[in-house]
């Protein structure tokens, strides 16, 4: 039985190559030229965790639930002035140290989910490689700086209760 002729198959294949080449020449390549153009990651992307220090009460829930134990928290109790005149000074937890070790972090988000006071937020920033591993331990101020990159919360649904 004669074998199928191979030449039309070759021409069809070359046709596909040529049409892809012309499409690339016309529309441009698919490449994102990294240092000069960067594609924005989705808003839900897990790049880095930011800390809103005012909301944090040093309850240690995030540190205890982190599977990697990469959050280091130190706090102490102190007396805050009374809220109304003539009241008693109240005891509050003051946050001394809140470090996240991004060398250990596995970006699972358990700390963000578990925080009862909404003090931790995801941010899609991913450009923070360091030549020294000690610099990957981000302290309280650095985590506060990441707050500026946190995207806006999504709109609540129609009919949702707003406080």
């Amino acid at each position: 039985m004669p074998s199928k002729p191979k030449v039309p198959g070759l021409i069809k294949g070359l046709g596909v190559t040529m049409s892809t080449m012309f499409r690339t020449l016309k529309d441009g390549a698919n490449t994102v030229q990294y240092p000069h153009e960067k594609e924005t990651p989705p808003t839900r992307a897990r790049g880095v965790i930011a800390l809103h220090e005012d909301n944090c009460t040093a309850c240690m829930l995030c540190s205890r639930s982190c599977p990697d134990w990469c959050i280091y928290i130190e706090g102490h109790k102190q007396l805050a002035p009374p809220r109304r005149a003539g009241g008693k000074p109240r005891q509050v937890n003051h946050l001394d140290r809140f470090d996240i070790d991004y060398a250990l972090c596995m970006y699972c988000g358990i700390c963000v989910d578990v925080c009862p006071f909404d003090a931790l937020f995801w941010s899609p920033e991913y450009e923070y490689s360091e030549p020294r591993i000690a610099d990957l331990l981000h302290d309280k101020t650095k985590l506060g700086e990441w707050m500026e990159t946190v995207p806006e919360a999504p709109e609540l649904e129609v009919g949702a209760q707003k406080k």
Partner: protein
Amino acid sequence: MGLVDRGRMPAPLTKLFNMGRSYSMWVYQWGLACCAIEMGAAFGSPRYDVMRLGVIPLPASPRQADLVVVSGTVTDKMAPAVKRLYEQMPEPKYVISMGSCANCGGPYWDSYSVTKGVDQIIPVDVYVPGCPPRPEALLEGIVLLQQRIKNEDMAAKWRNEEFTTLQKTAALEKAKSQPAPEPIVVGGGPIE
């Protein structure tokens, strides 16, 4: 000819060599675990093409590579192989540790069989955090390494010292060449 390791290269030539070295790195991909997928996306896919940065991901053996990207968990069983392949690379060589597992053991920090960080075995130049890092994060790590290489003092590297920049070496030489300032004597006159 020994000009580089004796530090006798004129400055423009050093800059040229540094630029040449940083834009023509052949990367030995040491993909061990999940980070290898993201490394493959950075190195092989057309979207995050790494060849445009001059980094060619195709050396046939470690003896032809200048950069190694360790991506993934380094287990204790694999550690001697990592060390041996690192030693087979010719100088000057650079290491990028990609992902939490290679940085410091990551989620398996407590395991009996994981090496907590590849920097326990080989010296690392850039740590890329992430689990796994996005391909652009690895590209940013490579760009950071390229910037460090462009400023690097190769004579110091050949003498096995820590990473120094050309600017720092020049500043040190200048400080050494100036005579030490006269100590200020308080109280006037020598001690009797």
